[in-house]
C-alpha cells in the first residue's frame, strides 16, 4: 500500500504552495501548474504533504492510498 499525490486539475488554480512545500515531488510547469510524476510518496514527505493538502486554497491536492492491485 502506497501513498500518492493526486491533483484535481479542474480545481487547481496554480497557487503553487504544494510545489513550495514538496519540491522533491512536485514541479511547476511554465504556467505555474503542478506536475506530479506518479511515484509513491516517501515517508519523510508525508507530513509536508499533509500541510500542502491543508494549505491549498482550492483543495486541489489530495493524498490517496493505492493498493498494489489498483
Amino acid at each position: 500500500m502506497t501513498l500518492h499525490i493526486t491533483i484535481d486539475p479542474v480545481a487547481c488554480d496554480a497557487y503553487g504552495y504544494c510545489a513550495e512545500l514538496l519540491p522533491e515531488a512536485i514541479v511547476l510547469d511554465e504556467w505555474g501548474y503542478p506536475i506530479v510524476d506518479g511515484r509513491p510518496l516517501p515517508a519523510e514527505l508525508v507530513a509536508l504533504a499533509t500541510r500542502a493538502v491543508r494549505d491549498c486554497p482550492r483543495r486541489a491536492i489530495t493524498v490517496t492510498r493505492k493498493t498494489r492491485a489498483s
Partner: protein
Amino acid sequence: MSSSVREAPPRSELHRLLGHPIDLAGHVATHGPLAVAMGEHTSWQGALAASLEASGLAGRGGGGFPSSIKLAAASAYRHGGTLVVNGMEGEPASDKDKVVLTRAPHLVLDGAQFLAALCRAREVVVCIPTGRNGVAAAVQQAISERAVARYARVSETIVRPPDRFVAGEESALASWVDGRDGLPVFRPDKSVPLRIGKRPALVHNAETLAHIALIARHGPEPFLARGLAEERGTCLVTVSGAVAQPGVVEVDRGTPLWDIALRGTPTEPAQALLVGGYGGNWVGPQHFATPYASVSLRTIGASAGVGVVAVLGQSTCGVAETARIARYLAGQSAGQCGPCVLGLPAIADDLARLARGQADGGLMARLQRRLIEVDGRGACRHPDGAVSLVRSALDVFAGDVGAHLRGEPCAHWRHLSSLPFPRPITLT
C-alpha cells in the same frame, strides 16, 4: 402499408447497421419485436451479457472500452438510473453517429432499451446537439412511432445540449443532462458511476448501442463472423479529406486502412491518412496496409478513435493542416484546466509559426517540452488527443518540418484544406 410479409435478411446480413428499413414496422419485420427478444424472465439478461462478452464489442465513441466490462459495472447499479445515448459527435470530421441515428434510429433506441433493462434504468435520454435538427427530427419520428405502438419499455426523450467538441465527453454530457455546467468532471476513479440527480447514469455511444441491439437479438454470431481473429465485427467509418465521395461507410474491423480510404475514391495520391479523428493520429504511407483494428493500430501508435479516416493529399501541407487542427482543438478546450487552456494555444501558436516558416531557434525544443507537459494533465482526454496528433505529425511529416525549420514555407500551404471545421480556422 403494413409490411408484414417482408423477408428477413439472410443471416449473413444481420450484423449490418445500415441498409435495413428505417420505419418501425419494417424494423420489427426485419429483426423481430423487442418484447420477444427481451424475454419474460431474467435469464435473458445473463444471455445478453454473455453475448456481449463473446462478441468482444468495444465502445465506438472514441474510448474503445470493452462494452461487456462497462456493462458489468452498470449492472451493479441500484435501479432507477438513466441511460444516456451519446449522439453528440463533437468531432467535425465524423458523421457516423448522425448517420446511424438518421438511418437506424430504432436499432440505437433498441440498444438503449436493452441496456436500460439490464441495469434497471428507468429512462432513456438521447442527446443530440443543437444545430442538428435533421437528426433530431429523425430520432423524434422514431420515438413517436414507438410511443404510438407502445413499443418501448422505458420512456425515451431527446435533449439538445450545446454543440461543442468536449460536450460529448461522457462526464460532461451527464453533467449537462443533470442541469450542471456540462463540462468534464475530474474522475480519478472511473469505477464510481456518473450521476444524474441522485441516480447513476450510463452513457453509451449511439453506434455502440446499435451493435448491442443486433447482438441482443441475433446473438453474437453474425458479429463474430466479420472482421479478423484479432478483432471481430463491423463498424462505421467516416471517410473524408481529398476524396471524391466523402461519407460514412460500414466496414469490417481489420480492413486495411487504404481499402477504407478507397471507398471514398481519393482524388490524388495521399501523403498521409488521419486516423481516429482530430484527436487521433497521422499515419504515413508505409503503414497504409495496417488493419483497422485496435491491436494492429496500436502497434503503429494509432487507434480507431471516433471512426474517422481522412485522406491528406499531396497538394496540401501536413504541417499546416496539423496547425489548423491544433488551433481548433485549443479553442475547444472546456477551459477548466491550466495545462489545456494555456498549453494547447501555445502549441498551436508554435505550429502556426512552423507552418509559415517563421520558426525561431528554440521552437522545436519548446514544442517537445510542451507536448510532454500538457499530456495527461487535464481532467479529460482532450489535451491528450491534441498531443497525440501533433506528435504523429512531427513524425510523419518530418521532411516538411525540416524544410519549415530552415525557413522554407511549404509551397502548398495556401491550397484549400480538405479537412472540415465548423468555422474557418486561420493560421495567423
